[in-house]
């Protein structure tokens, strides 16, 4: 437990931190501190808490020194990187903490074209890395989040990608990490843990330590460098705004029923032809595609009319990576699957012709580019400001229908959600071995009632889903309905004990991002 009050130690701690990062890179001015008091999540909005200092280190060594000071005085440390977080993980949850901002660790250290990997510091975001690697015919699959999110943050936060059917979860791309523990010690994972071996192997020696950092919400230390796998990119050096990238083709398969759509999703995963396969939620299409807020609003007000057009659609993206013939083959397979599952296949040009009038003029660029360098995903938040995936399980794809029906029923009791437009995102992962299911809800950050209702609802649906469908909560970090839920499950007792022991081992003074994971 934190024993000392930071305010009593203020000048002493300040001068020690100043010596580490330099005068220009530390502040205790309220104008600097207040902006770190909340993020867009309901957790942080309910009780905004500013830190006591903000420091901007520029190296792993400086971070080690900061951790030593914080241990000496037992002061909590909260780490903020790109700040694109919707779960309250990167803002202080108690008074008197040091906020370590990673903005100055912003270098791409290496791009190895031959061995297809890149080593980056935390503040490097997806868009930046894509811009550099696409020139070399490589890329890291784009996150299903704004491409302004830090790569390391997204990986460690269990972030998703649109390309999970082909490449699996984002974190599977991690090769190695440099990691400062809460006590300021240095750990290297993977092949670089043995001197001069280079970046190629992620597992060991011994247990795969990287797993400890993934999903522990910054409670076990700070990753200051990460090496990630890159994959072949065939779309050209520059994204083309008006049409799909080179050697790329998009399709939409439209269904009349959810059951058939899920069958289609599963078959498309098994067929191993596509880079992207996803069921796009209606909200994303309505709120995310239009460039202007006014257009989004217009579509939202006419959402009932769009339901037939948007409700059961699967987006498929084919990329011809080794031969152009892959596109023709992939298209043939898509048509065959659609035929077998009663779906109708459209390419974007056909869709333009048949789409409802009020969908006209919506930029095609959104559809093409969002999947490669995400930009439109924050648009879904412009509707009400607050956004939260209320339901986020991993489950066999075919279970998604049960989950969807359960959610639809439950949502009727949730006062702030427009349940007349219910549809969730379903993404097959790893050739469809399982699916990720996401239901987003939106709330007004100005309304304490909506904030509370959102949190209550999220907790409720998680418990329901857990008890009725044996779903596995994908996002460990959604603290209100993950740890609180799973820790009560009797079978989880031993895992809970081990987890707590690991935390104690790494962070005996409990200074690292307290209250975000284990309570």
């Amino acid at each position, binding site marked *: 437990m934190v024993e000392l009050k930071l305010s009593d130690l203020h000048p002493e701690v300040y001068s020690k931190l100043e010596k580490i990062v330099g005068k220009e890179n530390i502040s205790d001015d309220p104008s600097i501190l207040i*902006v770190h008091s909340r993020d867009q999540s309901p957790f942080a909005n309910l009780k905004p808490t500013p830190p006591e200092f903000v420091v901007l280190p520029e190296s792993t060594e400086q971070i080690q020194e900061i951790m030593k000071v914080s241990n000496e005085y037992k002061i909590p440390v909260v780490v903020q990187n790109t700040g694109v977080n919707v779960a309250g993980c990167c803002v202080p949850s108690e008074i008197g903490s040091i906020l370590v901002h990673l903005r100055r660790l912003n270098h791409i250290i290496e791009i190895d074209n031959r061995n297809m990997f890149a080593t980056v510091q935390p503040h490097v975001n997806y868009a930046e890395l894509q811009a550099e690697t696409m020139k070399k015919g490589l890329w890291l699959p784009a996150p299903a989040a704004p491409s302004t999110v830090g790569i390391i943050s997204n990986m460690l936060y269990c972030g998703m990608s649109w390309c999970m059917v082909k490449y699996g979860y984002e974190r599977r791309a991690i090769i190695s990490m440099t990691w400062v523990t809460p006590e300021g010690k240095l750990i290297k994972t993977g092949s670089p843990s043995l001197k001069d071996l280079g970046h190629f192997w992620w597992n060991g020696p011994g247990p795969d330590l990287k797993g400890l950092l993934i999903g522990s919400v910054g409670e076990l230390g700070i990753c200051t460098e990460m090496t990630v796998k890159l994959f072949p990119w065939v779309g050209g050096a520059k994204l083309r705004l008006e049409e799909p990238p080179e050697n790329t083709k998009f399709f939409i398969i439209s269904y009349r029923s959810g059951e058939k759509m899920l069958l289609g999703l599963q078959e498309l995963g098994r067929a191993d032809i596509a880079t992207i396969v996803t069921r796009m939620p209606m909200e994303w299409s309505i709120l995310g595609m239009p460039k202007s807020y006014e257009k989004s609003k217009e579509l939202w007000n006419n959402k009932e009319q769009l339901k037939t057009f948007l409700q059961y659609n699967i987006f498929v993206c084919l990329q011809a990576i080794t031969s152009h013939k892959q596109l023709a083959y992939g298209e043939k397979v898509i048509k065959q699957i659609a035929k077998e599952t009663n779906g109708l296949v459209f390419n974007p040009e056909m869709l333009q012709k048949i789409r409802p009038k009020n969908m006209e003029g919506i930029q095609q660029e959104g559809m093409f580019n969002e999947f490669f360098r995400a930009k439109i995903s924050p648009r879904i938040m412009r509707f009400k400001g607050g956004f939260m995936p209320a339901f986020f399980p991993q489950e066999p794809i075919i279970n998604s229908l049960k989950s969807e029906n359960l959610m639809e029923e439950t949502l009727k009791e949730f006062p702030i959600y427009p349940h007349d437009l219910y549809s969730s995102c379903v993404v097959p992962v790893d050739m469809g071995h399982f699916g990720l299911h996401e239901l987003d809800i939106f709330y007004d950050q100005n309304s304490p009632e909506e904030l509370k209702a959102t949190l209550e609802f999220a907790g409720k649906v998680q418990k329901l889903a857990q008890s009725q469908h044996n779903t596995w909560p994908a996002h460990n970090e959604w603290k209100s309905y993950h740890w609180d839920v799973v820790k009560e499950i009797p079978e989880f007792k031993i895992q809970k004990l081990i987890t707590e022991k690991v935390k104690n081992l790494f962070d005996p003074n409990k200074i690292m991002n307290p209250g975000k994971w284990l309570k």
Partner: protein
Amino acid sequence: MTIDLDEYYKIIRNCSKCAMCRNMSPWEMQSKEFKDICPSGTRFLFEAYFAPGKMELARALLDNEIQYSDRLEHILFACPLCGGCQAQCEEVNIINPLDVMQELRKRYVEAKGPIPAHAKFAESIKELHNPYNEPHEKRLDWIPENINLKEDAKIAYFVGCTSSYRREEIAKATANVLNSLGVEFNILHPNEWCCGSPLFMTGQIDAGKEMMKHNLEVINEKRIETLVFSCAGCYKTFKETYPQFVGDLNFKVFHFTEFLSDYFTKHKIELKPYPKSITYHDPCHLGRHSKVYEAPREVLTQVPGIKLVEMERIKENAWCCGAGAGVSSAYKEFAYWTASERLKEAESTGAEILTTSCPFCITNFLEASKMTNCSFEIIPLIKIIEESVK
């Protein structure tokens, strides 16, 4: 600028902190080196200097969680109000950070008065009608003897303070080009005063309105139908700021690039070759603030021999020159740093010339270039046209 911050409170609170406003559009990003869009945040690093931070500061001020301080003053005024953040946000959300920031400045000035450097030029504008502390009588010193002005012309050239006192070559070139093309025009002297841009942009709204009132009276007295500008800042002030206070203007306003682009096309003007590779910098007041992106490029590409080589950050994504909104007078080092970043980007194109269509940008680039080794020349766009229409 005319937003009511109290009513805007809910919108500010709903900034999702997606961080799109920290970088240029990801879809158009071509390299990590030239990806930043916010000079203030990129230079001063703390989150408070980026637009999401400033939105949070606006909220905290409205909620009385913070007080005005030296640091807050720096955060609010060490920003060229280039609108890079707003251009990104417009495609994502509805926050309009630029409007919020201008309103925050206005409130700061109402509470604490203008910051010293801005108070100084405000005094000069009040007394001498220009921010450079120059005698008003010298405003016309730039004009060459051979220029033909027509007393009752319906077109007037609004010269602006920077072209009148600091970049006389731009004023001369503009007048020469209009003469060469046979355009009948006049100037407003001795009654042309500062357009008020430095005042409006630094939160000194009432003082800015005084300038507006005077200039509009003069223009109406002279029954001017078309006003042409060589300064992006003056143009933006007439086109965007004045109408916020007085409604639609009863005369047309054109930046010279718009005027010439149209004129060249309509009159099929033959231009002399200018065989150079040129990169063009979008001034914020002409580009993002007034949405004029194509006209300067059309003018340049109509000149035979010019090879337009674009930088990576252009149009909505352009990196600011760093001088605007009172930055060059209050935070010179920051203004030069921002300009130097742009010079590096211009250098990367391999162009022989960096050009732009704003005297304020040109001045800042020229000053910054003294501290760097540029392999290219910095030439105002109107000077290139002057060469080509001779």
